[in-house]
């Protein structure tokens, strides 16, 4: 249980509202003993106001099932039934400062028990939406039956669609192989063949610009001439501030040293020094500054000793 938060441990070792509420008028049972997970939620709801006065739980479940149930009962007390239904399994997990990925289904169970209890209180029939199968996606606690049914009902044909419909596969992506397997089988059953999506597009580096990307900027725009030196320096500083975070992510930084007409001297700091991408970085900075100033400038990185020369010492 090394991955449990302090909050989870607290609710597990010392659960709140354990046991059934004696005069309950709403009962929700979910899970099954065969899966090793079952939860009964009992609520006392005030008839006139729909406010939940008391809540209790009984569970046959693991540590996080106990903690999730305990958290849920604390959360719903004092809410109206409608407000309580707004609680998502993620809210339960957040209340506990997070649950490990493979334990997220415990919070799902809590949320389902709540729905069942409310249906019971209102005298509605809750359609039992799924039997549980083997977990496919641990990040979102989605089981095989759920994925299969959704794929079938909506004629899904890609992992991305499955993620959009069920959330499965939207986390670490370790379960994509399993989802592809289900897609392959289900699509075969409806006479299609599964074709995996092409390589997903990835983000590009913001600062390390390619030469081809550098926009041509007309040199000597008349507007540029109107800027005073102070204005230009301010604009340059502002542009550098915008670039800074992405350099700092690479453990580097940049400092403005001097502005001499079109020549802007900067000092690269930290990991930027000697980085094989230093020249690309300078190119990126130059591009940003040209955009900011609307004129052609040349950015030159200077080392410490050049600095001394520049200062005329």
């Amino acid at each position, binding site marked *: 249980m090394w*991955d449990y938060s302090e909050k989870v441990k607290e609710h597990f070792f010392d659960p709140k509202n354990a046991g059934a509420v004696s005069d309950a008028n709403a009962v929700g049972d979910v899970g099954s003993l065969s899966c090793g997970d079952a939860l009964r939620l009992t609520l006392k709801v005030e008839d006139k106001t729909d406010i939940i006065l008391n809540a209790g739980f009984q569970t046959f479940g693991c540590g996080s099932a106990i903690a999730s149930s305990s958290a849920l009962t604390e959360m719903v007390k004092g809410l109206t039934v409608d407000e309580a239904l707004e609680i998502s399994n993620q809210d339960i997990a957040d209340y506990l400062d997070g649950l490990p990925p493979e334990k997220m289904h415990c919070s799902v169970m809590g949320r389902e028990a709540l729905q069942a209890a409310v249906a019971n209180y209102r005298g509605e029939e809750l359609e039992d939406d799924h039997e549980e199968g083997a977990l496919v996606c*641990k990040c979102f606690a989605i089981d095989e039956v759920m994925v299969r049914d959704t794929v079938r009902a909506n004629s899904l044909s890609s992992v991305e669609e499955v993620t959009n419909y069920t959330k499965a596969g939207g986390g670490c992506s370790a379960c994509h192989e399993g989802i592809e397997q289900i897609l392959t089988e289900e699509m075969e059953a409806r006479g299609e063949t599964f074709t*995996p999506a092409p390589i997903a597009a990835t983000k*590009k580096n*913001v600062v*390390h610009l390619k030469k081809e990307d550098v926009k041509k900027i007309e040199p000597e725009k008349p507007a540029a001439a109107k800027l005073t030196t102070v204005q230009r320096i301010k604009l340059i500083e502002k542009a550098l501030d915008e670039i800074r975070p992405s350099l700092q992510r690479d453990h580097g930084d940049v400092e403005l040293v001097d502005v001499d007409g079109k020549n802007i001297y900067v000092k690269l700091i930290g990991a930027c*020094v000697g*980085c094989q991408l230093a020249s690309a970085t300078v190119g990126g900075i130059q591009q940003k500054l040209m955009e900011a100033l609307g004129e052609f400038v040349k950015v030159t990185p200077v080392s410490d000793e050049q600095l001394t020369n520049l200062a005329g010492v």
Partner: protein
Amino acid sequence: MNDIYLDNNATTMVDPAVVDEMLPFFSEQFGNPSSIHSFGNKVGLAIKKARKTIQTLLGAEYDSEIIFTSCGTESDSTAILSALRAQPERKEIITTEVEHPAILTLCENLETQGFVVHYLKVDEKGRLDLNAYQRLLSDKVAIVSVMWANNETGTIFPVEKMAEMAQNAGIMFHTDAVQAVGKLPVNLKDSCIHMLSLSGHKLHAPKGIGVLYLKRGTRFRPLLRGGHQERGRRAGTENAAAIVGLGKAAQLALEHMAFENSHVSALRDKLQEGILKAVPCSFVTGDPDNRLPNTANIAFEYIEGEAILLLMNKFGIAASSGSACTSGSLEPSHVMKAMGIPYTAAHGTVRFSLSRYNTEEEIDKVIEAVPPIVAKLRKLSPYWEGDGPVEEPEKSFAPVYA
């Protein structure tokens, strides 16, 4: 005599701080990280912490992109075989002719199974032709695998650019970065690199631990199936002590990154200049303008590398050579051959690879020791006469019996 270790591209000393960090995980912290009880508890937490540090070192977006393996070779095999299994309709691989045997031997074996492997050529400085690469990118290619930096010459390949080109062609990109990680800043979240291999013992962590970086969303088929470890992507009980060690080593590498690129590279430059100045007919191989900060590969013409190493060893200097004799084959290093270095020089290449533990004093000693060694061996060489090579050395001595 104090030994001078200049063979850090082969393997590195485990940093004492890494050892300290690891020791408890052999004795009191022996639990299985998967266990519920508190024996496993602490181990699980320690692994989590190590994963985070390595995420930072690689600039990865998520810590779940870090998969622990047993070594760089396993990471390489996992990456390539996964790409082939996930895309059975694609039967081609692009790599380079100067890769590490972990890639080349696997590729050769795959060729016998009907896969087509394209080996990118390098020029005399070990550089790739990106136009030739571009022409090979097609939807028949399952994966491109290109090393970040060459182990023998230290030459750096433009993998970020190449990954982007692969990405634009819809092809997975893997890089064997065992020489680069820890020496060069790496920022994977902003790159198009899908997979990356690293090896612990190249960055002052112990042997027997490696990492495969797997970008989230990359289609993957595990090499080892079994347990749920590493989210089912690499089964087998975690090598907890080594993982903790690698985490510490990653932290140290981050802290020393600037040092490596200033101090260590300055020592390397001093060594290289000192030797080149004192030894005639010697030159640097690879691309000195695009090179790991710690590596200098110097060819001493007309003599043989193993002999140089043996004599250097007498002075307590450890380095390695691209000579045939040191590799147990008759051919000189495939990297030297690929660059078209003549045999008379290729057999006499010596790789000096430094680390943050080397001192200026050591470098001075090496600069002093190497020239007489070379001179001594040249006296014995049939290609050498007096102060210089014989005229047309290749012709003057062309033995018929191999």
